[in-house]
């Protein structure tokens, strides 16, 4: 079998880590791949975060148009505050595999976030971020699940998403747990590698898109062991063992790349891309505490003060219960949104900002954030503040935080209650950097070239072009022609289609009674499943 186009997504991959690993001989396949192709920096989304960034990469649309901003969506209603987890139904633009399917092409989507519940397309789907109990219902077509279970050494537990394990990437990991935790991710990578190779060897697809999410997890927790500039000068035995495990992870990733190249076929074009980059951070900025100090937020009297390095409460609901909503005008619900929501006053809601003062309020807030100095260093803590209509233009900008922050060291702010506004961490930890990676090689791709930076929304049109499909004219991304040889572009000029990248509006809860047709439709579906006669 073979594939015209392969996307190897490496969550959080950065040249800061990959370059030393290539230089040390730990990633020879990646080094050769880079030498025979192109290398670029890939600029991420305004908030370089997994859900909006991967969604932008695979749709070619920016968050204001695809509607995904965070892992969760905060909701304020008459019932109070709650949140909902973001899922595939919140993605309002077609993915590359849906666009390809609409044009008669076949794809495989493996381990991408926000692909569950499945949306129909021609090809194979093994969604990422799905727990083991629900994987059977997630894999499409259903018989693929049985195929995967029959793979030698297959372990559903290792393939599946585990919420408790995910949380450990950002907090709550005892140093004693580092080694088993990294080994666990190594096993997980090898499970997903087996799935990728099974698909590559047994199915003919126009696009295979795969994500290895391990680099992100390792880099969050084990940054000092990966970044040579942070590694202890006098390492302990354990430091050395952890570093070796991290190297083993990337060596394993490199072997997977070698196998993919070997199996892909001579005509294949392979793209390697990350949703964002990574860097180290040592500071914690307590954003909600800053808001309290400036009179925009009030904690409840019984809200516990967190004196650890946690950046979020253990449960979202706990986070909401810590705030006195009767006296809170602005708040940050999650570290990952890296932003502030401004509450609008009106009706029964007394706390909040009136619409006629909103503009002045957000400007004042932004100005005060930019002026804030770290008490220890007297340096600015916030390097940039983006208003949502500037950062996220599009029909879904109202779902975005009113302000999105860029902190001086790219860290995510803490949203818990603290007795400090900034705090030094005991050790460096990893955080998302806006510059990711893009490498490509294969027929028609320039060879050995370092090319100018691309934007993450440009990857989707590159994949579509490489697969031989038409590119929807309405994408935010543009075809990065500078990746390709000019002769190849002349022989294969890109073709565009006027088809919109937007999905049909999703069904929502209605207030009217169901009509006979709706009820009959439900009856028909149950009959079809044999549940009623």
């Amino acid at each position: 079998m073979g594939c015209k186009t392969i996307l190897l997504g490496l969550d959080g991959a950065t040249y800061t880590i990959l370059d030393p690993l290539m230089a040390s001989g730990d990633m020879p396949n990646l080094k050769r791949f880079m030498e025979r192709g192109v290398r670029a920096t890939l600029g991420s989304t305004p908030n370089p975060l997994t859900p909006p960034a991967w969604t932008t990469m695979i749709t070619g649309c920016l968050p204001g148009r695809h509607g995904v901003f965070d892992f969760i969506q905060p909701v304020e209603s008459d019932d109070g505050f709650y949140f909902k987890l973001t899922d595939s139904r919140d993605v309002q633009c077609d993915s590359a595999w849906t666009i390809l399917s609409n044009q008669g092409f076949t794809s495989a989507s493996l381990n991408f976030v926000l692909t569950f519940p499945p949306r129909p397309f021609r090809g194979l789907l093994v969604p990422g971020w799905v727990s083991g109990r629900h994987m059977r219902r997630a894999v499409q077509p259903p018989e693929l699940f049985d195929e995967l279970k029959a793979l030698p050494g297959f372990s559903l537990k290792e393939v599946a998403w585990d919420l408790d394990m995910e949380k450990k990437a950002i907090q709550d990991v005892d140093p004693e747990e580092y080694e088993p935790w990294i080994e666990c991710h190594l096993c997980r990578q090898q499970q997903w590698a087996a799935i990728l190779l099974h698909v590559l060897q047994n199915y003919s697809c126009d696009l295979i898109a795969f994500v290895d999410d391990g680099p992100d997890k390792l880099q969050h927790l084990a940054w000092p062991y990966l970044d040579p500039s942070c590694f202890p000068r006098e390492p302990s035995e354990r430091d050395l063992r952890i570093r070796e495990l991290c190297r083993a992870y990337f060596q394993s990733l490199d072997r997977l790349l070698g196998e993919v190249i070997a199996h892909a076929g001579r005509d294949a074009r392979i793209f390697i891309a990350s949703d964002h980059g990574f860097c180290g951070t040592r500071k914690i900025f307590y954003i909600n505490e800053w808001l309290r100090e400036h009179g925009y937020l009030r904690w409840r009297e019984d809200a516990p003060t967190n004196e650890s390095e946690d950046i979020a409460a253990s449960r979202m609901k706990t986070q909401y219960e810590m705030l006195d909503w009767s006296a809170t005008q602005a708040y940050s619900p999650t570290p990952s949104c890296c932003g502030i929501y401004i509450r609008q006053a009106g009706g029964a809601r007394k706390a909040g900002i009136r619409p006629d003062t909103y503009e002045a309020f957000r400007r004042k807030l932004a100005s005060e954030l930019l002026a804030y100095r770290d008490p220890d260093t007297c340096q600015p803590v916030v390097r940039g503040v983006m208003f949502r209509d500037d950062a996220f233009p599009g029909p879904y900008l109202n779902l975005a935080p009113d302000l999105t922050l860029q902190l001086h060291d790219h860290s995510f702010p803490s949203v818990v209650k603290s007795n400090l506004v900034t705090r030094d961490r005991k050790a460096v930890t990893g955080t998302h950097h806006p510059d990711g990676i893009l490498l490509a090689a294969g027929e028609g791709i320039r060879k050995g070239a370092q090319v100018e930076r691309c934007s993450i929304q440009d990857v989707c049109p590159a994949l579509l072009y490489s697969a031989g499909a038409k590119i929807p004219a309405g994408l935010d991304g543009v075809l990065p022609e500078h990746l390709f040889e000019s002769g190849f572009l002349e022989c294969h000029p890109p073709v565009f289609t006027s088809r919109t990248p937007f999905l049909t509006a999703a069904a929502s809860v209605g207030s009217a009674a169901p009509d006979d047709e709706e009820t009959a439709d439900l009856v028909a579906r149950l009959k079809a499943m044999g549940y009623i006669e």
Partner: protein
Amino acid sequence: MAATAPTLDTWRQTTHQGVIHILQDMTSDWETDFAGPIVSDTCLVSDLGFCSIDIVQLAIALEEFFECKGLPFQQLVTTPDGKYVDDITVGELLQFLLRNLKQLNPQT
């Protein structure tokens, strides 16, 4: 022959059967001690072994099946004073759906 319009009872019955179908399908390969059958008194947590993420997945499955996104599941999983409930019966889930899927009848 003209189709007969479904009655209120038919709607309740089919909703009930839809919920049972989803629960059976979802839990069919879970390794739990529950021997079934799933009935109105069956508890999601103590009988079927649901954890919080399973309840999220159930909510998604129900919204997909009934083609209604945005059901107020927070009302189902919390008490009026905002505390999480310990468990939910299938009957409570069904009543929640009948109340929220569509306003069939103000008397319901």
